[in-house]
């Protein structure tokens, strides 16, 4: 067992434990912070797969951006001090059946399909990913920037309306 594989085992246990906490905790703030732990663990998994640029993007955007947004969402929508941050679950049984079925399907695919073996990848990927963005993936890249602009305006428009209503 190589040190890389050992680190992989430890970090996947970390990620799955954090994900379990997100799914089953009763406190929405704790769920948000456990999600932060899970996303950070995924960034470490990216490093172990020698995806260094992706790990940096994961930390910057997910851990630094999306998680802050989630905590904003939690704090702005719970009545502070009046009602607790308690989470209630519903649909437990149908959801369990669905998840077991989909998990079985995924496990079956994992087991049956002849996945091509992994090869060693060289670590500094940022330069080549940047090159791909400006050559092979130029159109998706530009579409993505337009989409981000649309989302920016759309989010402001949706969120502004409710402020004006008050």
């Amino acid at each position: 067992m190589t040190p890389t594989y050992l680190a992989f085992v430890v970090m996947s246990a970390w990620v799955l434990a954090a994900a379990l906490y997100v799914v089953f905790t009763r406190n929405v703030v704790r769920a948000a912070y456990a999600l932060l732990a899970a996303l950070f663990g995924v960034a470490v998994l990216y490093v172990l797969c020698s995806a260094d640029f992706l790990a940096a993007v994961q930390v910057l955007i997910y851990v630094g951006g999306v998680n802050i947004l989630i905590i904003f969402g939690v704090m702005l929508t719970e009545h502070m001090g009046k009602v607790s941050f308690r989470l209630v679950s519903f649909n437990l049984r149908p959801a369990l059946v669905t998840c077991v079925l989909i998990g079985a399907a995924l496990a079956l695919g994992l087991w049956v399909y002849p996945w091509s073996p992994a090869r060693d990848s060289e670590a500094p990927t940022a330069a080549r990913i940047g090159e791909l963005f400006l050559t092979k993936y130029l159109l998706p890249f530009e579409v993505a920037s337009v989409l981000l602009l649309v989302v920016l305006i759309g989010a402001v428009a949706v969120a502004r309306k409710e402020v004006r209503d008050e």
Partner: protein
Amino acid sequence: MIPTTHLLAVGAAMFVLGLFALLTRRNAVAAFMGIELMLNAANLNFVAFNQARPEALDGQVAAVFVIMLAAAEFAVALALVLSLYQTFRSVNLDEADEMKG
């Protein structure tokens, strides 16, 4: 080097957990946390597939696009959740069942 199937197994487990959160949570923000878990599981699969052709880097580029879309999605989702909260005074998904404009 980590075997592809082991990465895919972790991804599958994360995906199922995220799906469970999405289906069972009443709080809209908590349901979105499930979606984030599912997106991360898909990204982990992209990185695992990238290991089959490491010189092409297709999988990692796809994963960057997914991260970008997830950020955009959550910005819209937060605006919608705030709007939902203003309308219904709650973010419980099963209480928002009216469609009056």
